[in-house]
């Protein structure tokens, strides 16, 4: 396992250029930020002040940066190119192997997140951020669960490439739903009512919005704990989905060959 992590680190270093561009592409929150600060310049926009928007979108940027994943693209590509067969020959579960590579990239992504976090603290401070000790304590576990849900969900999505020849369309659809329902595009409370309901019962909210809510929203203790329990539940569910789809996919892979 340490070796896997080490290789993951050197891979990230080797592809640093692409990695940086990939990070830069998550500019959508910045655009929305620019938009809404200009909207809230003259007064609050539905309970959100200009500072609230700054805090919200910067927090989104940080969480997205730390928990985002490209594993679905990686897996479907490996299946398409036939390199997946190599993974099947190794005596380690691909979920673990690939996860190790992705965990190894987190420090580098954290490096990019730090300046954003500093800006967030300086500009927003206590005004729009939480000071509740419980919420702060829950933040780290919540981030870890967010990462796991995102990774497992995308892993499952990647496994669909075992069943459909080009899974690209599915991934575009995923990103669409994610943008809409996770709080990436708009804070969930600003969504139309029916979408807000869908969002609250979808895994997407737990991929991104929940840690941001912990950071920026005032919550009661029960509210925070219930949110965490739901997040843990989603983590178990997506993990099961990923491993199940993987097993079914491999069975088909072995039967048909590729």
């Amino acid at each position, binding site marked *: 396992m340490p070796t896997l992590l080490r290789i993951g680190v050197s891979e990230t270093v080797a592809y640093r250029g692409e990695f940086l*561009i990939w990070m830069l592409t998550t500019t959508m929150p910045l655009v929305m930020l620019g938009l809404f600060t*200009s*909207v809230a310049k003259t007064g609050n926009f539905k309970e959100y002040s200009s500072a609230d928007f700054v805090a919200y979108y910067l927090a989104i940027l940080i969480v997205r940066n730390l928990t985002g994943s490209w594993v679905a693209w990686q897996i479907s590509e490996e299946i398409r190119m036939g390199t997946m067969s190599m993974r099947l020959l190794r005596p380690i579960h691909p979920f673990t192997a690939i996860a190790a590579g992705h965990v190894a990239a987190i420090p580098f992504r954290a490096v990019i997140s730090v300046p954003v976090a500093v800006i967030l603290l300086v500009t927003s401070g206590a005004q729009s951020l939480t000071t509740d000790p419980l919420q702060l304590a829950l933040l780290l576990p919540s981030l870890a669960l967010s990462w796991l849900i995102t990774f497992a969900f995308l892993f499952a999505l990647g496994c669909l490439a075992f069943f459909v020849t080009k899974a*690209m*369309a599915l991934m575009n*659809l995923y990103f669409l739903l994610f943008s809409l329902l996770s709080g990436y595009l708009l804070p969930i409370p600003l*969504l*139309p009512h029916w*979408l807000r309901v869908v969002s609250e019962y979808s895994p997407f909210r737990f991929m991104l919005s929940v840690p941001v809510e912990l950071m920026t929203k005032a919550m009661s203790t029960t509210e925070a704990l219930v949110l965490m329990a739901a997040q843990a539940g989603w983590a178990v569910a997506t993990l099961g989905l990923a491993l199940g789809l993987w097993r079914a996919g491999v069975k088909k892979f072995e039967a048909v060959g590729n």
Partner: protein
Amino acid sequence: MRYLRLIGVQLRISAASGMAYRSDFLLEGFGTIAWMFMTLLPLMVLFDGVEQLEGWDRGSALIVMAYFMGVRAVLVGLVSPSLTELTERIRTGAFDYVLLKPVDAQALISASRFEPWKFLELVGALVLVVYAFYSKGTVPGGGDVVLGAVLFVVGVVAMYALWIACAASAFWVVRLDNLQYLLSAIFDTARWPVQVFQGVWRAVFTFVIPVAVMTTYPAMALLGRLDAQTALATVGGSLALLVVSRIIWQIAIRNYTSASS
């Protein structure tokens, strides 16, 4: 003549190609419709809370959005798939076969792939324009419609030039997809009137990566708000971009044929 027939054949082949994977094809269709909805959502939410923003009311902003969808339809339906195809061919070496054909390589590549479903967005864009004017309760003047249509083409040209220039870099750094993602992310800002962005951002979106030329100015033309000077600058800027991108492409090809092995 040769080129016309070629476009016909490529249209047919791309449609057939797209349908080779049926599940994908249907998903694409659904995705396109869902995407149009998603594009509109933030705007709806926004104008649910405010009357107007930097001089843009809901109806006018919808027109910018319609131009965005129109330009994007050409981008994701034609330009982007073709250029992805280009990277793929450079990587596999099949690009050599493109150079061996007696037609211009840029023309051949630029139309090498269509994604028929994506052109649904063009229809969506037209519907949106009609709806926007209906909700505003106004009718655009004839001259404005002509100028708006011309500037739509100009906007598409600017977008195309930007992407070609970016694609030419595929000859040096073979992984283009990331660069394309970056460009797409920036292009995404074109859905908003450029005036809503402040300071540096507005300058960047007007001059450096001219998303304003692609959507805001054409929309202003259709609304009858664009002065002649800006209109001319829009056309000129777009053509200049096209020329520059052609030069970059030719340098890239020359480089390719003198250095590859």
